[in-house]
């Protein structure tokens, strides 16, 4: 039994040093029961290292990680009760069939795991290929077998490390549908990804990691509200060349660029108001002047790489 009311995942001040390099530096994560939690960051940000520490595969240099109140470093396999998943791509014995691999894992798990193999293979749509050697499986099939290996543990918490990496678009769609289905069934999911769109589609809470440190943790809705950026504008006029000159002359307008038949710039709201008057006084017809909402992707770039360049905004 886990500790009463303990959260599925609770990491506090998690640190992992490799020599002088801090791969993870003071990470706090809190995953509540029922969350579909996105752990988002660019490659090399420290996501996989964090997940390895959560699963007890590597020893933290500092801080603590608890799964349902248990520390994997202190409680060993007991800390993984009710927990399943994989880090990086799931790995199996290539000289055994998919089913044999699952039987092996079920043998290590004990309990009723063996009885769940058929159902798990069905869930990931691998029943037909279960007798084939894993050495002949495609990357996508191995990913799905990884999920099946997790499901036979009948977990309450599923940890998935970039489950769609390396999959073709159809494979990505199927994997996301599967994760959504499992989450809808009440499973708590912690999913790492470097794809903002994937996290936006699947998750209700998110932590963004950059260079080993958390730069945002909260609800997806809170992240979306931060994405709206009132200081960026898009402008279309009857004469963009002349409008460009007017904009340049307007004090307070910055980052002015002409992109795809329109102008984009940053300015405080009062400056944008004065600019509209100036444009009209210059004899220009304003076809469109609207605040430009940054996408979550823009926000992600800004959080993980610093302010986006004009080119990034334009794209």
């Amino acid at each position, binding site marked *: 039994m886990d500790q009463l009311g303990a959260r599925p995942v609770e990491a506090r001040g998690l640190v992992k040093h490799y020599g002088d390099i801090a791969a993870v530096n003071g990470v706090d994560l809190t995953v509540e029961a029922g969350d579909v939690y996105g752990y988002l960051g660019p490659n090399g940000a420290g996501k996989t290292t964090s997940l390895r520490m959560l699963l007890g*595969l590597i020893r933290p240099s500092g801080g603590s990680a608890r799964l349902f109140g248990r520390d994997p470093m202190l409680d060993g396999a007991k800390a993984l009760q009710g927990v*399943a998943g994989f880090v990086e791509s799931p790995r199996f014995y290539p000289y055994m069939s998919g089913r044999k691999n699952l039987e092996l894992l079920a043998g290590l798990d004990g309990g009723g795991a063996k009885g769940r193999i058929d159902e798990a293979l069905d869930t990931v749509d691998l029943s037909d290929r279960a007798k084939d050697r894993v050495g002949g499986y495609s990357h996508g099939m191995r990913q799905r077998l990884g999920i099946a290996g997790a499901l036979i543990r009948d977990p309450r918490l599923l940890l998935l490390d970039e489950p769609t990496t390396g999959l073709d678009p159809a494979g990505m769609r199927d994997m996301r549908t599967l994760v959504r289905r499992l989450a809808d069934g009440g499973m708590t999911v912690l999913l790492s990804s470097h794809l903002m769109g994937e996290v936006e589609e699947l998750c209700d809470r998110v932590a963004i990691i950059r260079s080993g440190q958390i730069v945002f943790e909260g609800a997806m809705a809170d992240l979306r509200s931060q994405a709206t950026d009132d200081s960026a504008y898009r402008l279309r006029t009857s004469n963009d060349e002349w409008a460009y000159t007017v904009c340049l002359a307007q004090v307070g307008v910055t980052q002015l660029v002409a992109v795809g038949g329109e102008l984009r710039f940053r300015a405080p709201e009062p400056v944008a108001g004065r600019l509209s008057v100036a444009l009209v006084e210059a004899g220009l017809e304003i076809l469109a002047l609207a605040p430009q909402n940054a996408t979550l992707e823009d926000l992600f770039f800004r959080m993980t790489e610093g302010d986006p360049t004009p080119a990034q905004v334009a794209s």
Partner: protein
Amino acid sequence: MTTAGTASVYRWEIRKLIAQKRTYLGLGIAVLMPLIFVVALSLHAGQPNDVAFGRYVRDSGLAIPLVMLIFGSIWLFPLVTALVAGDIFAAEDHNGTLKTILTRSVDRGQIFAAKALATATYTTLALALMGTVAVVAGGIASGFNPLTTLSGTRVSVGEGLLLVVASLGVYLIPLLAVASIGLLLSTITRNSAAAVVGTLMVALILQLITILPGLESLRPYLLPSQFDAWQGLLRDPIDWSPIIRAAWVCAAYGLPCLGGAYLVFLRRDVTGG
């Protein structure tokens, strides 16, 4: 750590060994070695007079496995043992499957114990196979006749067979010490080839030391010398001193290696894969 959990992991370690070609390579060597010897003996006149029991190989098939023990001690049996001992942890690293099994309901200690036991099982099986094939092939070639011991007394076929089995048992002691060295290198190097070759190199270097002049006083305490301990059983009366020495000398080599491997495996970070 529960015994049932360890037993479950052990069963799967055995199944994994059964599914791997490397296992059959080692067992194949153990089977072929006496067969090649017996065929060579049948095709050519004479016998290996310079090794113990060499002069009796045409008198009794029971002498064949004993000669095989002497021939095999230099590098063959260390190689057969190293093939699995050096691979059993390193292969999990290479395949990336260590993380797969370490995120299930078994502790690292259970996995280590099961892998060490599976290695010992394989080593025992390889030796038993060699002994069985050597006795059968030798019996067919030279006859199931009474065996002449190192003291010159002749023992019946039944007693000779018992002595052969007991000799194999004593021979297993230094082999398990070699296996422990292989397990240590397998956990430290995380590379099958390095661990297998490394184990063999350690065995060969120790072998070299035994023949260096001026180191005679060290010889009884070197691992390769313990491969001759079984010969004490073939004396009349039985000389237990080399067997007892083999037990503690091999423990002195094997247990620190096994303990070291255990600690490394228990504390190591599982990265990669």
